[in-house]
């Protein structure tokens, strides 16, 4: 990975590393502070289509998730204190509009009006990053986050974590949804 560092104008000492895979061109953003890190890895809409078509989704429904700006997300606690987050505290800024993330609960609500088979609902639910999670030192999760934007859109992500109860708010700027190649 080719990496570059950008110091953030955040209320904490933190930094964001950006990277681009030379083979695929897919980009990544990694925020870290005091042993806690959040990494966003672009996923292509075609990757999302294939994954969910193999797990019970059908054409129209799979497009809803494939074109919802999905990232593989890795949240790690490599520090020495417990860490918690709630994705309801996170938000994104896109073209001047602040939006919430599409959490498991928001997708579940969407399937109330656009029903999908139970295996598909289960697959999406467990593939998404948990909405609320607590990590002891040494714990981590991989999971998808979705931002509900069209492919190729830019966004700034505001994240909130609590390290041993202390709330940390930071920005991951200039994130870009993967294009629909």
């Amino acid at each position, binding site marked *: 990975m080719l990496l570059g560092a950008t110091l953030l104008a955040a209320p904490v000492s933190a930094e964001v590393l950006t990277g681009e895979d030379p083979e695929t061109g897919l980009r990544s953003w990694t925020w870290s502070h005091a042993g806690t890190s959040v990494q966003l*890895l672009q996923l292509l809409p*075609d990757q999302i289509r*294939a994954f969910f078509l193999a797990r019970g989704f059908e054409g129209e429904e799979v497009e809803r998730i494939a074109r919802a700006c999905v990232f593989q997300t890795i949240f790690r606690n490599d520090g020495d204190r417990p860490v918690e987050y709630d994705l309801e505290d996170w938000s994104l800024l896109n073209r001047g509009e602040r939006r919430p993330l599409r959490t498991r609960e928001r997708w579940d609500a969407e399937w109330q009006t656009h029903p999908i088979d139970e295996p598909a609902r*289960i697959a999406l639910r*467990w593939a998404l990053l*948990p909405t609320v999670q607590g990590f002891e030192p*040494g714990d981590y999760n*991989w999971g998808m986050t979705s931002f509900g934007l069209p492919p190729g859109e830019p966004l700034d992500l505001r994240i909130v974590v609590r390290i041993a109860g202390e709330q940390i708010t930071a920005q991951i700027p200039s994130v870009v949804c993967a294009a629909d190649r």
Partner: protein
Amino acid sequence: MRLIVTAALLISFALPGQAVTPGKGLTPMPDRPPAPDFALSDIDGQTHRLSDYRGQVLVVNFWATWCPPCREEMPSMDRASQTLAADGIQMLAVNVGEDEDTIFQFTANYPVGFPLLMDRDSKVAEAWPIRGLPTTFVVDPQGRIAYRAIGGRDWDQGELLDPVRALTRPPTAEP
């Protein structure tokens, strides 16, 4: 027709060169809550009930084939299960939401000697204190959750297994 990208990209959701770095340690569970009972079939059709293992130390791993950290820890978990068997400790892996064929295909590349149970409707996973995969629990001989690990681990690390083995020994009396 739109190009549906290569199988490698589809399956892993990991970028090339994106290594899975294992987590560390086991977290003691305060007050050791009771482990919710279950009755699940393994991929050979045999039913396993948690209550059947009462009196034994049990390691219960919740996983899915599409989850990179789950796949990464399987080989070392299999080696650990063989080591721990000498101490009478059993390992079980509960697959969340997938079918028998998917799991069976997975075992061609990741053969394991411990039972792979199927939680097709994810009801068991939802009854346990799990929010993401993989999550592993260590259940004591009294059927209580003694330890938890969120995210994959390197089960070849001896110190990871020490607290598991310690559960097989009767607690020492207070002086």
